[in-house]
């Protein structure tokens, strides 16, 4: 059995007296798509925030490739191989598409960012990563446009690209299809599925078609805790999941 690339042990996140995530443990295997689903308010996004360091942990332990990163602030976790996209698009709106990607690519080697003299163009690797990602995300035509001027679908693709640019081991995608049109969703699904060969994907997604089709493992959360974890078919047939809240949404009405 392969070792998990990401292990989270008893993750707890409290905001004041409210416990958003209450003792969640998940193991993510390398080169898989691991989805986290659950109703609104189940604590999925908070779990993402806690794992990627956007908010500090209340308690618990996070291991990446066996190394404990729980105490590192978010920006340092990028260097250990974690990268994320946001549910609400979070780009550099007044910078160009290429510059957005270049900055994201350069972030892994963030010490470079303090170079007060060297020009960014001389930092070849990041520029090449940015150019190739723009192509992969089908953003080459708009690469010189400001990120804030892009259409919603393009912005969502760029949002995913920002996470990819860091060449992470584990990539966290928080509802990459949110607000997307039907046509774009199919492309996004293909893109996420194709990521499996190079990365490990942890995905929050409300679109059950996508989740059921491309996930290797699904963790179902409810009220800050793990309700069920398993392969898509097992989750689809699980009585607890059905009776709890997903109902026909998950089975698509089929019995």
């Amino acid at each position, binding site marked *: 059995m392969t070792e998990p690339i990401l292990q989270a042990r008893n993750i707890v996140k409290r905001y004041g007296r409210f416990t958003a995530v209450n003792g969640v443990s998940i193991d993510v295997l390398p080169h898989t798509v691991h989805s986290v689903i659950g109703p609104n308010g189940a604590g999925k996004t908070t779990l993402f925030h806690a794992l990627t360091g956007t908010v500090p942990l209340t308690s618990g332990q996070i291991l990446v490739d066996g190394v404990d990163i729980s105490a590192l602030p978010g920006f340092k976790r990028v260097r250990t191989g974690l990268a994320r996209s946001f549910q609400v698009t*979070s780009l550099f709106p007044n910078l160009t598409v290429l510059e957005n990607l270049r900055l994201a690519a350069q972030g892994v080697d963030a010490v470079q960012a303090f170079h007060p003299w060297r020009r960014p163009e001389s930092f070849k690797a990041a520029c090449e990563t940015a150019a190739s990602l723009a192509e992969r995300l089908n953003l080459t035509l708009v690469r010189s446009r400001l990120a804030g001027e892009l259409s919603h679908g393009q912005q969502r693709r760029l949002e995913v690209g920002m996470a990819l640019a860091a060449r992470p081991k584990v990539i966290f995608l928080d509802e990459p299809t949110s607000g997307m049109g039907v046509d774009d969703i199919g492309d996004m699904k293909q893109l996420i599925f194709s990521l499996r060969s190079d990365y490990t994907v942890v995905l929050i997604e409300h679109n059950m078609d996508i989740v059921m089709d491309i996930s290797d493992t699904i963790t179902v959360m409810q009220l800050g805790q793990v309700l069920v974890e398993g392969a898509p078919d097992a989750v689809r047939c699980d009585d607890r999941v059905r009776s709890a809240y997903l109902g026909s949404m998950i089975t698509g009405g089929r019995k």
Partner: protein
Amino acid sequence: MNASFLCQYRHLAMAVATVVVLPLVLTSGSLATEVLIFALAALGCNLLLGYTGLMSFGQGIFLGLGSYAAGLALLHLRIPLIAVLPLAMIVGALAAALVGWFSIRQRGTYFVMLTLAFAQMFYFLAYTLRDITGGDNGLLDIPRPPLEILGQRLLPTAGPWEYYTLVAVVFVVVFWVLQRIVDSILGRTLLAVRDNEARAAAAGYDVRMLKLIAFMISGAITGLAGALHAMLTGIAPLSNIEYGTSESILIMTVIGGTGKLFASVLGAGFYVLVGDWLSTLWPRWLMLLGMLLIAVSLFMQKGLWGVGTGLLQRVRRQGRADDTATQRSAAYD
């Protein structure tokens, strides 16, 4: 190569042009010098406001401390001019490190309030320590030594235009360095911090450290401006470290326009020259400036720089339209 080189350094070219043009249009050397000194201070402020997204009400601290540092060094230590300038920069940078270290822990309104609180604190500190700063009177009779390296006299500074030459050289060098910094990896990463802090952190950047570095660079430049100002006027007055100085620097920066280097030179030039001219006509001229600031905030947020580029574009478009018109009429002929 030449075209891109020119494009890269067009702001520097404009700065050099300013240095050359000022003596041709102004009769007072000290007024011209003052323009360049406040342009330096505004550049330091622009690095924070326009490139990092930090609105600091504490720039007067660094200017005042630069003045005091230069005054004390020249009065008591009699060190050469070439050493006074780096000293003022170090003092400015260290003060900025202190103010920044506390202030950048907060964002938005609280950040602004913290810089404001530090400005008040440093003012009262300078006011209280009258043995060192001269309190209300400030430091008087600060000498202005000539520029010497190893006993070699490079530049006299006694006359106003002679001193202007020294300040002009310093100004151009600082402008060039700043141009390199904002075009560097650091500068471009600061823009990312300005645009979206949360994303910059998620991309792996130490946002606090980046802000602190921007603060220190800004403090160093502003401290340098303070030292040059002390040598210009021969005094280091309490008013240099007053809140009003912070405010003036901010106003120059905003009126000029943020996020473009030369805009700060425009803003400072406008503020100093118009102020000088209006104050002879009407002692309450600051009221007019207030109206201008309202106009800038409401209608021209890119400042004088934005107005200038807008006009230039219109002229160009008109030129192009004229061209096509003549071509068309030529074709009909």
